[in-house]
């Protein structure tokens, strides 16, 4: 069944889960950061160590705890709140609540050769609840701080229509000595609507040291707010109840706005079933 009334949306609200993440400093201004490998709540997640990576289906450590709705119910975003703990930590919404479909590891950060990836089939959680990859994008996450270089990252992928040989590059320039949690979104080739699978990653220059991981994610909701220390709160009306599919592996990316002091991101996530 589907939620079609306000009463049903309210009746279906499930318990709220608090989000508490400690943000270290030293992140570049303007980049996104991932909360995936930060603690304490949810606990920090880990990465796969193989180039082919692994498809992700709840429960996965690092994700917001998830339970599939029972019976014929479907799940939707009921409420989301994101708040930085201090105005001077540079952390502010926008923040992206995303579903993490796949990630990998084992990328040689000193190599400029194309590194082959044969990603497994995505879970059936693209924007229409299938495995084709519509509305699924790629990001490069730094899991251990990088060296002093600024390579361009090129990823070869198959798009959601099944067309191979597509390429995308990092939309935001790679920061030199990128800190852990730095997240660089990968562009789509003109005409593409999403990524079905990944075939390779190539760095234009050695990044000298550190660890990077590719992630396939579906943005569920994009939260913005008007000031640096206020809460960004979205409800069933203002968030438009995006659907959350069985097995969702939900996490948050934040945007590093200005300064790079340490602090925390606080918030809560609440689904509704119906």
């Amino acid at each position: 069944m589907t939620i079609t009334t306000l009463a049903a949306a309210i009746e279906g609200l499930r318990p709220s889960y608090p989000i508490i993440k400690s943000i270290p400093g030293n992140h570049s201004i303007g980049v996104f950061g991932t909360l995936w490998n930060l603690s304490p709540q949810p606990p920090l997640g880990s990465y796969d160590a193989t180039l082919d990576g692994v498809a992700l289906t709840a429960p996965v450590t690092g994700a917001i705890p998830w339970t599939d709705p029972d019976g014929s119910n479907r799940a939707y975003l009921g409420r989301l709140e994101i708040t930085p703990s201090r105005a001077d930590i540079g952390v502010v919404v926008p923040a992206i609540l995303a579903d993490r479909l796949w990630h990998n590891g084992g990328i040689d950060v000193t190599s400029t050769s194309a590194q082959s990836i044969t990603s497994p089939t995505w879970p059936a959680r693209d924007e229409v609840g299938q495995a084709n990859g519509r509305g699924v994008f790629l990001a490069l996450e730094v899991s251990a701080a990088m060296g002093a270089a600024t390579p361009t990252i090129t990823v070869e992928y198959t798009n959601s229509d099944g067309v191979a040989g597509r390429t995308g590059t990092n939309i935001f320039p790679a920061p030199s000595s990128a800190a852990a949690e730095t997240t660089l979104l990968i562009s789509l080739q003109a005409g593409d609507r999403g990524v079905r699978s990944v075939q390779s990653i190539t760095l234009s220059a050695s990044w000298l040291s550190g660890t990077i991981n590719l992630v396939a994610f579906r943005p569920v909701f994009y939260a913005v707010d008007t000031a640096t220390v206020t809460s960004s709160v979205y409800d069933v009306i203002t968030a438009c109840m995006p659907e959350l599919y069985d097995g969702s592996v939900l996490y948050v990316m934040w945007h590093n706005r200005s300064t790079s002091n340490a602090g925390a991101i606080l918030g809560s996530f609440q689904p509704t079933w119906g």
Partner: protein
Amino acid sequence: MAIASVDDLIAGFNQMPPQFFHKAITPTLVSGRPQSSWGLGGIPGGGSFDTTLAGVALSSSSALVNGQIPFYNPSGTKLSYLSLFNAIFSGVGGRILLVDRLWHNGGFTITSGAAQTVDSATFPARDADGATSGKGVLLGVEISSAAGAAAPTITVSYTNSAGTSGRSATNAFATANSPGAGAFFPIGLQAGDVGVRSVQSLTLSASWLSGTMNLVAYRILAEVASPGASLGGPGADALRGGLPRMYDGTVPSLLLYPNGTTAGYLSGQMIVAQN
């Protein structure tokens, strides 16, 4: 059916998935002068331009247009409404417009001071009333490759939405030397007009020396503020945004009015309710 209640709105959610965008705004910006993201890479990928003066009508009904934020027609007799548009600009903030791109052209001789005949193709039935009359349809000149060091006045001759021909208007923002790719110069309307039905000609007051320019017809769907770098204003949700109709074949794209010159990225989402 139309959305006429909160329950109608909720029932209309999730008929079309939310659409996320993230575009790098890399050209040199001018404070207050619009910048189009149409040709820029990111999510979605960059779009292209037509090369004929008559141009092409744009529609997503049979296939998405390269460069557009995805939009999918509703099923059956359902109607589409913008239920949320929120966005930020990471550079210096500004105002961000979500527009429906109805038509664009190319093939201008950017060095010519003569009237260049356009005789535009019929615009799609996506004016403010979902018709082809042009109510609420505006024009703008978009630079697709950097122009030369000159600042001509742009005059467009058009037929207004009431069907009156021989109307004339010029660029609402002064052109400038060497505008980069993506620079966008809205064209005004002659007094009394509320939209453009078709375009007959375009004239530059002087040579722009080099580069490529294109004329675009568009309708504004929503506008949000990004009051500072990476800050978002209250989004255009169903209540604040007024639930503007999005007609079948809509080609959503973005215009940025930056508050300064710092480059950055344009990021946000568009959510459509269909019922």
